[in-house]
C-alpha cells in the first residue's frame, strides 16, 4: 500500500467517524445509539491498524486490538446488558431542537479545523489532516453530553469523546506511547464499572435514568 492510498483510506475512515458522531448527536433511540457507537469504534480500530501498517509502528496493532476488544465488543456488550437489565431497551428520548444542534455541530467542525491549523502546518505525518476531525469528534461528544438528559446517552457521549481523543493521538503522533494507551484503556474500564453501578443507583433512587430528575443541589437564595 503506498502512502497516497493510505492517506485516502485514512481520510475516508475519518469521514465515517465524524458521520457516526453526528449520527449519535441526534439519535433518539438508545439502542441505535449503541450501534452507532460500536461502528465508530470499528472504524477507529481499522484506521489504527492501517496507520500502524503504513507507518511501520507496530505498537499501533496493540492499540487497534485494544480498541476492538474494548470499544467494539466489551463496552457495547456492557451497555446492552445494562439496558436489558434496567428494561429501558425501547426507551426513546426527546431530543430538543435537532436542526440547531446539527448547526452547532457543524460550527464545531469548522472551529476544529481552524484550531488545529498550526499543527497541520508543522506535521509531516500522512494522518495530519484528520486531527481536525478527531478534535471535532471530541467536541461533538461534549455537545452531546450537554444537550442530552439521559444518563446512558451522557455516558455514550463521554465514550465518544474518548474515541475522539484516541483518534487524535493516532492522527497527531501515530499514537501515544504504549504505557499511556494501556493506562487510558484501564481508566475507561474502571469508568465502565462505575457507570454500571451508577445506572443501578440512579434507577433505584429516581426510578428513571433521566438526569433531569436530579436537580436538588442548587444554590438557594
Amino acid at each position, binding site marked *: 500500500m503506498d502512502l497516497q492510498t493510505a492517506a485516502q483510506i485514512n481520510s475516508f475512515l475519518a469521514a465515517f467517524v465524524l458521520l457516526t458522531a453526528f449520527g449519535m448527536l441526534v439519535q433518539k433511540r438508545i439502542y441505535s445509539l449503541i450501534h452507532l457507537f460500536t461502528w465508530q469504534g470499528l472504524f477507529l480500530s481499522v484506521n489504527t491498524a492501517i496507520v500502524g501498517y503504513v507507518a511501520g509502528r507496530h505498537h499501533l496493532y496493540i492499540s487497534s486490538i485494544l480498541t476492538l476488544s474494548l470499544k467494539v465488543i466489551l463496552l457495547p456488550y456492557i451497555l446492552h446488558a445494562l439496558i436489558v437489565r434496567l428494561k429501558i431497551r425501547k426507551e426513546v428520548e426527546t431530543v430538543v431542537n435537532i436542526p440547531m444542534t446539527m448547526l452547532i455541530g457543524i460550527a464545531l467542525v469548522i472551529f476544529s479545523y481552524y484550531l488545529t491549523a498550526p499543527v497541520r502546518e508543522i506535521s509531516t505525518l500522512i494522518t495530519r489532516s484528520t486531527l481536525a476531525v478527531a478534535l471535532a469528534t471530541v467536541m461533538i461528544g461534549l455537545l452531546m453530553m450537554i444537550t442530552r438528559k439521559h444518563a446512558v446517552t451522557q455516558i455514550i457521549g463521554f465514550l465518544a469523546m474518548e474515541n475522539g481523543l484516541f483518534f487524535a493521538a493516532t492522527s*497527531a503522533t501515530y499514537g*501515544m506511547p504504549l504505557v499511556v494507551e494501556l493506562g487510558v484503556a484501564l481508566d475507561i474500564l474502571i469508568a465502565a464499572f*462505575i457507570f454500571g453501578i*451508577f445506572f443501578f443507583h440512579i434507577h433505584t*433512587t429516581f426510578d428513571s435514568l433521566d438526569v433531569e430528575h*436530579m436537580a436538588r443541589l442548587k444554590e438557594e*437564595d
Partner: protein
Amino acid sequence: MQSSMMLLVLLGVPLFAAAVLAFVGDRRLAPEVNIAGSAATFAAGLGLALEVYEQGPMLAGGKFFFVDAFNIYLAVLTSFVSMTTAIFSRRYMRREREHGRVGHIGMRFYHAMFQLFIFAMLLCLLTNNIGVLWIAMELATLSTVLLVSLYRTPTAIEAAWKYFILCGVGIAQALFGTVLLYFAAEKVLGEGGESLLWTNLSQMSDKLEPTVLSLAFVFLMVGYGTKVGLVPLHNWLPDAHSEGPTPISAVLSGLLLNIALYALVRCKVLVDGSTHTHYAGNIMMGFGIVSILVASFSLLRQKDIKRMFSYSSIEHMGIATFAFGLGGPIATFGALLHMLMHSLAKSSIFFTVGHASQMHRTQEMDKIRGLFKGNPLVGWGLMFGAMAIVGMPPFGIFTSEFLILTATMKDAPLMTPFLLLGLGVAFAAIFRRVQQMVAGEVPEYQKPMKVAHVPVMLHMALVLAIGIYLPDFLSRWFHTAVELLK
C-alpha cells in the same frame, strides 16, 4: 538503590492496603489497618524526603519516577494528611455505621477506595511521565466518585454523577492537551515513551514549538483547571465536597485540588520555556482572580456548612493559581506555602465540621449552635480553623497571603484591589457564620460525643507554628522549588 526501595514502599503500601481492605474492610480492626497503612506510607514519604533533601533531585525505576523539591513536599503532605484523615475516620465512620448510613459492603468499599485514592495521588506526584500523570489523575477521580455517593441519598447520587461527568469531560480536554504536547515533543526528542518524560521535556522546552504549546496549554488549563475547581469550571466541586462522608471531603478539598494544581504548574513550566512570554501565566492569573471573586461572593449565600467550606477551597485554589500565574520568586514561594497551609487548615476544618454535624445530625448552619459550651474542643477547633482559613495572623495562611499580596502590588498593581476585595468578602462571610455556630447556648438536640482530637490539634499546631516561624529546612526547600519553577 535505597531510595528506589523507599519509593516502592511509598507507592506499594497504599496499593497493597487497598487490596487487603477490599476484603476485610468491614472487620472491627479495619480502621486500624487503614491507619497503619497510611502511617507506613507517611514514614516512607518522610524517608524519601530526607534523601532528596540531602542528595538533590533523583530519578528512579528507569526514569519512570522523578523526585524533586516540588513534588516531594506535596508527597509528604499528601501522606501526612491521609494519615491524620485515617485516624479521624476511625471513630467517624464507626459512628456513621451505627447510625445505619453505611453497611458492610460500604465499609469495605470505603476503606479500599481510600487507599487506592492515596495511591493515585502519590503516583500523580511522583511519576515522570506526563501521560501517566493524566492517567493517575483520572484514577484519583474514579476512585472517589463512588465514595461521594456512599450514602446513596438522592443528593449524594446527584453530586457524584455531576462529579463523574463534569470531571470526565474536563480531564478529557487535558488528555487532548497532552497529545498536542507529545506531538511537539516528538519533533525534538523522537518517538517513544522518552519524549513524554518531564525531565527530558523541561531540558528541551525552549526547542518545543511555541504555537503548538500555546494551543496545548489552553486544553491543559481547561482540563486540569476543572479538577482544581477554578471558576467557571467549578460546578461539581461544592456538591461533591459536601455530599460525601466528611473524611472524603477533607482529602478532596485538602489534597486532590493541590494535585491538580501541581499538574497544571508542571505544564506551565514547559509552556513558559517554549514561548518565553507570560502567556500561560496570564491565563492562570485570569482564572485565579475570577475564582477568588466568584467563590468569595458565593460564600455569603451558603447555608450548608460543608458547602461553605467547599467554596472557600475554590477561593484558596484561586489564590494559589493566581500566584503561580504571577510568577516571580516571592509569589511562587507564597503559592507553595499557601498550598501547604490551606491543605492542613482545610482538612482540619472538615474534621471539626464532621464532628459538629454529627453532634447535631445536620449540616445546616442555622441549626448548629453552642459548640463552645457543648464541646469546647470542637468549638475552639472550628474557631481557630476559621481564623486560620480567613488569613488572620499569626496563622500560616496570613504569611502566604501576605507574600502573594506583596508580590501582586509590585508586579500587577491593578489586580490588588480585586484580590483584597475577595479576601475581605471571604473573611466577612465565614466569620459571621462561624461566630453564630460556636457561641450561644447548647440546643437540646445536640448530642455529646467523643471526638478524635489528635488530627485537629496536630494540623492547627502546624499551621500556627509555621505561621510564627518558618523552619529553615522548609524555606530552603521552597527556595529550591522556586528555582525549579522559574
